[in-house]
């Protein structure tokens, strides 16, 4: 029952939980490892997260529509391989990158078509295409790496522009675009509506299929962009890039308060979720240098953030 006071109708409890958790991490860092918080250190460490953050944008929207895209890693691989092979054939890396992103977008469209036309659950569709895309990347490239891209192309991944790494600007540009699409245009409302009740959407003339198709295509595009940045940063295009990245991305999005059942969550929460995951991960490896500890902390953090959210939210969200 939705009646109640301000406390009940306040919708940003999860964001506050996340802010507190981030604060805890920073406080710890300030106490034990002050150097961790220096700006130049933070700037360099941030290079580890931008590709994931970019992938989180479409993933957030897709999860809001009660879908999921497990194939982002596969699309990244296919994009990277396309980029590498075209570059090897003598194309300019910029042209090759554009075509790589194009291929990834097409992969996204394929996902979207199967989801909307055949009406198979996106979890199953993208589980299958995850393997299919990566397999295609391995088959096309015979798993061989392509390296030695020109310096100028490397700038895309390693360069710094106006005090921030170039991928950061890419993310922020995309975030701005996505946020304004969600906040200003009708497509944002459509995403939430589709996630809550697709049947009612059909009755309300909401173009459900176009929304979904667009989102999966966007996911493909973002995967392509992430792959290009990744290739530029590590100077290597290979079929194993982005292996297992889908779980990281989903973890970040879900930590950010996006409901896996669709219809709930927002971009602000997602950004905070990514930040929390990133800072925790970097701080744990900075302080303890034990990689296995990272896994334990990440896993528990995911559960903890949702548990805290449950406990702290006064309105018990019972759906029945």
């Amino acid at each position, binding site marked *: 029952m939705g009646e109640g006071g301000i406390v009940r109708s306040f919708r940003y409890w999860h964001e506050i939980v996340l802010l507190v958790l981030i604060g805890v991490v920073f406080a710890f860092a300030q106490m034990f490892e002050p150097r961790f918080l220096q700006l130049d250190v933070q700037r360099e460490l941030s290079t580890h997260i931008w590709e994931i953050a970019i992938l989180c944008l479409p993933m957030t929207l897709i999860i809001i529509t009660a879908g999921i895209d497990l194939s982002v890693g596969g699309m990244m691989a296919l994009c990277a391989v396309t980029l590498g092979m075209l570059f090897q054939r003598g194309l300019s890396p910029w042209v090759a990158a554009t075509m790589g992103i194009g291929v990834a977008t097409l992969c996204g469209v394929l996902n979207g078509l199967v989801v909307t036309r055949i009406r198979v659950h996106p*979890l199953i569709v993208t589980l299958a295409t995850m393997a299919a895309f990566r*397999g295609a990347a391995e088959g096309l490239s015979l798993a061989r790496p392509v390296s030695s891209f020109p310096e100028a192309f490397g700038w895309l991944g390693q360069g710094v522009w106006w005090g921030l790494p170039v991928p950061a600007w890419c993310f922020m540009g995309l975030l701005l675009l996505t946020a304004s699409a969600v906040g200003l245009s009708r497509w944002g409302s459509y995403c939430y509506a589709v996630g809550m009740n697709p049947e009612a959407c059909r009755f309300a003339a909401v173009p459900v299929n176009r929304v979904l198709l667009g989102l999966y295509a966007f996911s493909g595009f973002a995967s392509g962009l992430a792959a290009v940045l990744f290739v530029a940063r590590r100077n290597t295009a290979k079929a194993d890039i982005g292996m297992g990245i889908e779980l990281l991305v989903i973890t970040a999005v*879900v930590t950010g308060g996006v409901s896996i059942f669709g219809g709930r969550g927002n971009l602000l929460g997602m950004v905070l979720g990514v930040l929390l995951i990133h800072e925790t991960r970097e701080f744990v490896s900075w302080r303890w240098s034990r990689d296995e500890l990272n896994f334990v902390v990440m896993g528990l953090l995911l559960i903890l953030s949702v548990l805290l959210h449950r406990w702290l939210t006064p309105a018990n969200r019972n759906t029945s």
Partner: protein
Amino acid sequence: MDRFSKSSRWIALMGRNRAYGIFGLITLTVMVATAVSPSFLAPANVNDLLVQAAPIVIMACGVMVVILTAEIDISVGSMMGILAATLGVLTSPRHLDWPVPLAALAIMGLGAGMGAVNGVLVAFGKVPSIIVTLGMLTAFKGGTEFILEGGWITDLPEGLRFLGTGSILSIPISVGVALVVVGFTGWLLSRTSFGRRVYAVGSNQTAALYAGIPVRWVKLLTFTWSGFLVGVAVLVSAPQLSVIDSGFGTGYELLVVTCVVVGGVAISGGVGTVAGVVMATLLMTMISTVLIFLKLGENATYWSRSIQGCFILGAVLLDHWLRSQKRGWGRGES
């Protein structure tokens, strides 16, 4: 009224019989593989295939029960790893050197306990199961490293190795155990009140509450059952190899979920049979072997992952097509 019941009978038939569709696909695959290299159907190969499929079938029986209640368990891969590592540490003479039966009991108990932790968080903590088990998947992976501390367990006692490699009445132990588990799960789901309640909870949780079903306890039990079966699967599969390493079970969560889903269990709960899941598991484990038997040349190796993905997609699309044909939606039938 007449028309309606006729067409709905067809739907019911198809709904129940996803297993037949997959069986057809299996037959086709076997025929192609045997045509290329006749030794595919040799008893030794069939035996190996079954041994390979056994632990996956065992875990799929657990995960399927969880998915039937409209939840999901993707922690099974890492749980396998951490249980295998624990099993090694418990039994290896260099470490704790427990007697094998005791260690076996401990592993099954520990598995059930871990499953129960998942279950408690889902049923009583009200955290969505995909989040709980995704978190556990990651946490267990780290935990395995802590237990093994960078080493491998290389000195498994003979008694333990027998669980993985031995056979009784010329049936490999793992296959035997898998048969028992499949039989028991099938019986549990169709012939006991617990089984019916599992379907009921997955079909309509509110209605289940109204019908006086203790929904939370049912969910807790399904997760415990899933964890317990991971323990069983570890017991018969980890000792198949002489070495227990930290990578054991990596990626099994996706394989198991794929098998369950391809086997016709609806991800939204309430629908699915053990027969379908077993068939799908056989199909999925067969694919990689078949690819080797087809001798497609060196480069085919690189495409194998792609072919597997296409197989899953193909199975799902074929199923969809069959259903839409039988349902006679609109056109065609009249």
